[in-house]
């Protein structure tokens, strides 16, 4: 895991300077001769142009239509206009539809999409059918990827990989999540079901084969390649592209792998464009690798982003030539992309970019094209600054023979104490801090998973940060935190643990006192106040909860009511 730890700032700075130098260096002859076109012409779509939300998480191109998954539901293009799908449904829902994955069942034309926290949907000729973990056999409501083909829908969720056979109306489950086992977070499903099997990419795990033969067996998930820190994977035909933390791998047979170093870090996704071409999306750039002799990268960087934000891998660039192209990419982090012939679509937290080789491919003329690159995310101004407390009890989904043991891991009263302190310090004219938690009936009941509540807090309650307790080996919470882009203070420990290391959104408590098993004399102030107010002695859980909330509140006071800036502040504090 050490490879994924954040680099010291000096190293990052040097790398970024190198990136700028390389970006404007003369183009190597070999690259210039690559037989692929450059996307030179760009236009940007945001909520002002008809998207339901600036934040785009998933893309799918189906003939002349582009399906866009936003943080407020599904959007489709019709005659180069954006049309929201079933807005009424979105208004009734208790949680926005954060569309995280889209696939189209080509035979029927139905669109299947997964969400972060609301399960799986079928969009069929203006009708939405919902499948979630309470009303169907879906294993989890956080869906990372979907494949819909041949009457079978496979969804990678936070509860395992669910397989829905439409004709038989049966749900099956692979790799069921269990409280007594290190969980695997399947983030990508590769290709269609082929003779009853699919290969999946396990986040920070490897590539795994899931087959119908194993589906009913107790394990279900067979790890075949676990030696790489997998970020994502994709497959087109027989060629598999495998994105790990430090390289892109390609294989035509699943056995022999060619390695291609990445020109940048902070990668998120890989898209197979052809057997010889793949697209890699990173936070602030995306690149197209063309396999040839020699191979070459074309890296598109945001022309509005500061050069320092590029996380260029200097060694890699010297290994494989890279051409840097400045493009009008959306503000914020890039999340997804899809190439359709001579066009590319790039989704980001700040909008959707459309790039073309030929200017005629653009949807809008130059005079109607938006030049405003500021985020336009619609959102209500909160009347209070909300702090979330997530009771991440162990999921009650247990292996037979193991009794589920929900644990009370956060002391709500202690967090409230920290919030009261912050409110006392705050400007009385400003917004008050408010505590939101997930102690609703279902969380206590057990048929939901902690990530569902994380999604509800992050997307439904619009909290600025979350205090929670994450088990040392639980990657699910970290995987969703990565997508929710919400700061999470992990009260479980103050040292670097797996969830804190693998994503820049989970933070430990910096105060070493928080790790104590009992409240010590030097915590006297906290202990006395706690005792006075709640008429009981605080335990170590209370102290950790208090410190975690304090840490988050201090970051908010410094950075303001903006998750991105709070995250930056906390990262700086970590460094």
């Amino acid at each position: 895991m050490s490879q994924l730890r954040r680099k010291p700032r000096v190293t990052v700075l040097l790398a970024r300077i190198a990136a700028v130098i390389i970006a404007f260096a003369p183009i190597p002859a070999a690259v210039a001769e690559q037989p692929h076109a450059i996307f030179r012409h760009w236009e940007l779509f945001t909520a002002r142009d008809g998207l339901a939300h600036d934040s785009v998480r998933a893309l799918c191109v189906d003939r002349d239509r582009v399906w866009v998954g936003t943080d407020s539901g599904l959007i489709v293009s019709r005659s180069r206009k954006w049309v929201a799908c079933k807005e009424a449904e979105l208004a009734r829902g208790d949680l926005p539809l954060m569309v995280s994955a889209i696939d189209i069942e080509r035979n029927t034309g139905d669109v299947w999409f997964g969400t972060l926290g609301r399960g799986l949907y079928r969009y069929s000729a203006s009708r939405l059918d919902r499948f979630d973990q309470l009303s169907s056999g879906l294993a989890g409501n956080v869906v990372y990827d979907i494949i819909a083909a041949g009457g079978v829908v496979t969804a990678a969720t936070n509860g395992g990989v669910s397989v829905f056979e439409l004709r038989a109306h049966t749900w099956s489950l692979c790799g069921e999540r269990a409280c007594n086992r290190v969980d695997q977070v399947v983030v990508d499903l590769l290709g269609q079901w082929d003779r009853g099997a699919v290969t999946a990419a396990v986040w920070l795990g490897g590539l795994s084969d899931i087959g119908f033969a194993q589906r009913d067996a107790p394990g279900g998930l067979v790890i075949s390649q676990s030696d790489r820190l997998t970020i994502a994977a994709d497959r087109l035909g027989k060629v598999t592209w495998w994105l790990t933390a430090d390289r892109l791998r390609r294989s035509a047979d699943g056995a022999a792998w060619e390695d291609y170093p990445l020109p940048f870090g902070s990668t998120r996704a890989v898209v197979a464009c052809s057997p010889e071409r793949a697209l890699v999306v990173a936070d602030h750039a995306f690149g197209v690798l063309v396999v040839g002799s020699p191979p070459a990268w074309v890296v598109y960087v945001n022309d509005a982003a500061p050069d320092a934000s590029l996380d260029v891998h200097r060694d890699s660039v010297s290994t494989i030539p890279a051409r840097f192209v400045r493009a009008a990419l959306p503000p914020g982090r890039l999340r997804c992309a899809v190439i359709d012939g001579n066009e590319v679509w790039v989704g980001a937290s700040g909008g959707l970019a459309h790039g073309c080789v030929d200017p005629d491919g653009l949807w809008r003329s130059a005079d109607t094209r938006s030049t405003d690159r500021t985020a336009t995310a619609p959102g209500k101004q909160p009347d209070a600054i909300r702090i979330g407390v997530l009771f991440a009890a162990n999921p009650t989904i247990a292996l037979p023979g193991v009794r589920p043991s929900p644990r009370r891991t956060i002391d709500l009263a202690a967090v409230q104490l920290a919030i009261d302190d912050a409110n006392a310090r705050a400007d009385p004219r400003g917004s008050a801090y408010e505590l939101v938690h997930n102690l609703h009936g279902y969380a206590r009941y057990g048929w939901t998973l902690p990530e569902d509540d994380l999604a509800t807090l992050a997307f439904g309650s619009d909290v600025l940060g979350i205090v929670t307790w994450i088990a040392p080996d639980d990657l699910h919470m970290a995987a969703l935190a990565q997508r929710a882009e919400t700061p999470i203070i992990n009260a479980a420990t103050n040292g670097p643990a797996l969830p804190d290391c693998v994503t820049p959104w989970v933070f430990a408590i910096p105060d070493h006192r928080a790790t104590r098993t009992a409240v010590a004399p030097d915590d006297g102030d906290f202990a006395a106040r706690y005792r006075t107010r709640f008429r009981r002695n605080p335990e170590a859980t209370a102290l950790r909860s208090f410190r975690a909330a304090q840490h988050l509140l201090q970051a908010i006071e410094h950075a303001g009511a903006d998750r991105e800036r709070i995250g930056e502040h906390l990262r700086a504090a970590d460094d």
Partner: protein
Amino acid sequence: MKLVIRWTLFLLVVMAVVRPAQSDDTLAYFFGEAHCRACHDGTGAGRRCAIPDVPEHRDALAALQTDDAREITALSGVPEPPESSSICLGCHATGAEVGPRWWANSFHPAAGVQCEACHGAGSGHASQPKGGHLRRIDRSVCTTCHRALPSHDWVLHEGFRRAAADRRYRTPENLAVSPDGNKLYVACSQSDSVLAVNLATRQVVAEVAVGRRPQDVAISADGKRLFVTNRHSDTMSVIDTDRMQMIATVAVGDDPHGVLSDRAEKNLFVLNTGDDSISVIDLAALAEVRRLPAGRGPWSLTRTPVGTIAVTSVRPQPARFQQPHASELTLLDAATGRISARRAVPDANMLKGIASVDAGPHRGAVLFTLMRTKNLVPATRLLQGWVITNGLGVMWPSGQIDQVLLDDPVDGFADPNDVAVSPAGRHAIVTSGGSDRVAIIDVDALVALLEDTPAGARETILPNRLGVRGRFVRKLLPVGANPRGVVFAPDGREAYVANALDDSITVIDCGTWSVTDTIALADELMISELRRGARLFHSADITFGGQFSCQSCHPDGHINGLTIDIEADGVGLRPVDNRTLRGILDTAPFKWEGTNPSLARQCGPRLAVFFTRREPYTPEELQALVRYECTIERPPNRYHKREGLTPAQYRGKLVFERAFANDGRRLQRRERCITCHHGPYKTAQQRAIVRTTMWFDSWANLPLAGESMFDAKAYGDLGIFYFADTGVPAHDLDAPHLNNIYDSAPYLHNGAAATLEEIWTRYNYVEGHGYTRDLTRRQLNDLIAYLRTL
């Protein structure tokens, strides 16, 4: 003896084919009596079974071959022969529920009720005798089969037999006319056949046997092929009309109903009412090429002149609990064979017949029949009529929907079944199954009424307005009993109506709009008790204003997918889930509170008090009605395959029958599924407290306008968490039978659970409905998979 030989041969073949494919060796399989006796004969290591080797157990399987057995199955609504019915085999054989896939080579089912019938599959016990793999039994295991069964009593002790006529009725459902107008083809559900009628001589000239329970019939443009859907066979039959022979059978989805091709005859569309889908059949290859998601209960379809195919749905789409419902009209693009649009018809259900206006000034409009069941108002408002109304819908090419009622205030047009539009597009005929009439609709006048109505009123007032039919109904014509399908001749001079419970076709002259002839489809038959009961069931004569019949809420003897507010205690309070009538004779008591010990009690005076507001049935009528209701068939279970349960289903069965929680704790009896749901019908026929009370249930004893009720509403999903903290009012409910439970959503007494999963994921918060908190997701999925096989 023949049965035994036939069974043995069949099983040998099945075992040879299926046994090696058994895919989960961790699950026990049936081992056979011989192995048990090796240890338990009194001389071996095991104890001798205390239950004597009674000959009735050994001969139990052979008993299914008798005529009595066939009468019992008919009276129980069992569609299969007794020797292949899982209901019958559940008590008369061993290992039938899990099926041959889980039988060892040493297992001989012909031995009847064996040791493993009570103790469960024994292979695990044989390999580990001390392992506790066998079910511990007590007297309650015996009573799962040895209990009072009215079906058996009526046949074996009271001598019930179906009349000879009951085997000869045809029950015409739907019609198709040949393009030259010379022949009429009739799908007859009770005789499992299609009849050809010579329209010149008015005589039946041919009969072709098809699959089980044929429902709809369509004819190709050249008149050479007929397409017939078979509801219980899940197939579509293709008939050569020249030779009147079946030439092909195509497998489709569950419970196929409507059938029609596109104009180009590239694709044929079959509506699968049972699984809410549409099978698209390539007509050249006669094979299903895709299956599309339809509305709930797709029923009938028509071609429109604008290149689409419009499909009706009988059940409303899922809505938020206790919120107004809407049904779906699905539009298919005929060219692509895919769904192009869906239109919601608000507050309507039972969208059945549909026909397009193909000519005239209103070309492109589509007429469809509907009911408007106001299930959220107290059903006692039936006194004033209006709660269940019957009408006609119009869908315009723009997608706009209009609704008008065909009822007058004291003269209902109950159960509109089908509609046909004349070739010129000026008239339409609607059949009323409940009032044994047809209505002649003047399409111009109907459109004028709609256009005269202000836009707002057209949407909100007109759909509920009684007494407007005088504006557009030209004539009401009495026809035979329970008219269903209707069709015009190609030249528009005549129309034909299928009288289902009269076995006849009414011929209507479209010049004078009068009945000119009646074509008998069967020899003159006496009206049997069962047929008289069927007519009563489908007749609205007993209800106030003739507005609805029994089948209005129980179409096909099943459910309409709605919960009904049953008492006069306030709007939306105390809703009760509608329960199926299919195969319920042996599942007493009835009603969710289990207070009616017999169907006669259920359908007698109680019906008059709560629903019909007219004089109750006479004793003779009541007996006929009850007898008919008993025979309403339960369709074959699509998830219970002949080869046996899948591993997932078998694992689900073990969860259903488990005596220990996942942590090893022994479950109390009230915590086990099987305590209340056992036997072939999976019901203990008793009431039990399951603690699924919600704030709107009247026995929750919450003040109607008090603070507590609103607290409960705000507390969580339907207030169920409120009771978790404040104490659930104890109220016992009938343990329902679980046969074909997969097709009777919603669930629980008030219909709060939209799916089987929700029974446990949402509404078992206090573990009153079995202990399920420890189940893994895989176990829950397995349990659901098993429940679907019951």
